[in-house]
């Protein structure tokens, strides 16, 4: 009896030994810190349960930051998804040479990872007040973009910079979906007399819609958590919620440690919703990609 039990225990141990370090590590260094933050959001300064801390998120200063982050993420995700889709569709279905595809996907992989501080520097060097494009437009064409209201260190400037990694991530994710569009569908539509526009509007786009919306949600979450680019580009002039939280952690500028927890909790909720949308829509999109 004892040996059978011993064998059972050792077999169970062998079954789990490979995943135990992983589970222990992620429990202590991923789950626990996050749960700790979430619980903190529901605690007052005295340690008791309260919803007051969360209610403070709706005070103008924080609500504005959240709203700014949401708008930056929304516009950079929407434009990134649209433009990335158009570029990818042009290369895959627009009659462009086939050999362009592989370099495009490779480059998108690099560009999607080219974020953070260096990305901000690249744009400052290009479209900043002394940047290459700014100077060339002024000297060659007499166009002073800064006089006509353009500013890199502004809301739209930030969206424009974010497009760099948003568009490339879109291209990376949507290319397989575009390649999954069957040639037969286009031919069938054509033989029924559909124009190119009608084919895209009535066949291709509806098939791709779950992928498009899902990737949009992913792009939204992708830019919502970003901070280094904004920090390097705008300092603290655009007070995104990440920038606010960073300042709060560094110097407790909000005079309420629990408020930090509440901000973090609010961010988790927003990115979790965006990612949930992505996962649900992606599983629906996959039924066309076999």
């Amino acid at each position, binding site marked *: 009896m004892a040996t059978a039990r011993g064998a059972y225990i050792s077999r169970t141990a062998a079954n789990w030994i490979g995943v135990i370090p992983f589970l222990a590590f992620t429990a202590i260094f991923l789950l626990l810190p996050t749960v700790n933050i979430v619980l903190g959001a529901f605690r007052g300064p005295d340690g008791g349960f309260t919803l007051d801390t969360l209610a403070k998120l709706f005070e103008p200063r924080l609500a504005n930051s959240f709203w700014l982050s949401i708008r930056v993420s929304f516009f950079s995700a929407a434009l990134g998804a649209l433009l990335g889709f158009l570029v990818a569709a042009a290369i895959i279905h627009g009659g462009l040479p086939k050999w362009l595809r592989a370099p495009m996907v490779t480059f998108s992989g*690099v560009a999607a990872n080219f974020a953070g501080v260096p990305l901000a520097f690249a744009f400052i060097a290009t479209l900043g007040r002394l940047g*290459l494009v700014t100077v060339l437009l002024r000297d060659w064409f007499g166009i002073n973009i800064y006089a006509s209201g353009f500013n890199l260190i502004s809301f739209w400037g930030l969206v424009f910079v974010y497009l760099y990694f948003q568009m490339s991530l879109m291209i990376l994710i949507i290319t397989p979906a575009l390649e999954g569009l069957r040639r037969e569908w286009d031919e069938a539509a*054509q033989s029924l007399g559909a124009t190119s526009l009608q084919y895209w509007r009535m066949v291709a786009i509806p098939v791709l819609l779950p992928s498009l919306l899902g990737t949009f949600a992913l792009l939204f979450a992708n830019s919502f958590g970003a901070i280094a680019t904004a920090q390097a580009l705008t300092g603290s002039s655009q007070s995104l919620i990440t920038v606010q939280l960073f300042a709060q952690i560094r110097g407790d500028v909000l005079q309420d440690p629990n408020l930090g927890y509440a901000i973090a909790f609010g961010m988790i909720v927003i990115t979790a919703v965006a990612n949930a949308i992505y996962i649900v829509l992606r599983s629906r999109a996959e039924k066309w990609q076999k």
Partner: protein
Amino acid sequence: MTDQAALNTATVTDVPKARRSVGSVFSWAMFIFGVLYFALPLIGMFEFSLRKRRGTYSFDAYTTVLNDPQFQATFSYSVVMSLVTIALGMALVLPAAIWVRIRLPKMRPVIEFITLLPLVIPVIVIAFGYLRMFNTSSFLPMTGSITGTNILLAFGYATLALPYMYRAIDNGLRTLDVQTLTEAAQILGAGWFTIIFKIMLPNVFTALLSGAFLTFSIVLGEYVFAALLDRPAFGPYMIWTGGNRAYEPAALAVIAFTITWGCMGLIMLAGRLFPHTRAKR
């Protein structure tokens, strides 16, 4: 041929041609837009990084950066940190990925869900959690000493790298018939150590390499964790330079971009140098 028939032939042959040319002009326009948008910032940053000496192009900014002891210190710190992260990440993920394929298929969705979490929870939130959980008055006061903070930073990086590391290794395992390989090895008398190190590891070598290079390029430029844990890494150094210098930031951006490209290039090179044949079914 009746007029009607002529009309029909005309529609059949001409319309697609018109379709194609309108579509193709639009496609080329989109493509050129894409090339301009992606290339100009790279050209701009390179050109800007050469402008340090007045009136002529020079590599002065690079010389300044490369000779800056701060650069050398932070860069080598980040390189060491990413190597530690890669080792740690592999040690955690590889056994887990193999185990859920051969012994614990039930746990697979759980493990996959956990590896997705670092993409869902913003980095700054995880870093914030670390500061609250592992501060000097906690049960595990890791931030109390420099070594402790360094270890904590490596743990943080390993957490960030989880999604990429797991996906890379899982993709590598997918092309193998893990179950058959394991059973064959067991029949021949191999123990688990042999199975992992002599059978799995060589077969997922390419996947491990691509996970490693991706992790390397992520860790090298990481800013939030290093800044909040107050460690002298390359990311915070770049931010500092951005606020205090004119041309050096562009030089740093060129260096960072070259490293990202290098890592991606090495991933593809690894795939080409060590191709492995797919398990036949």
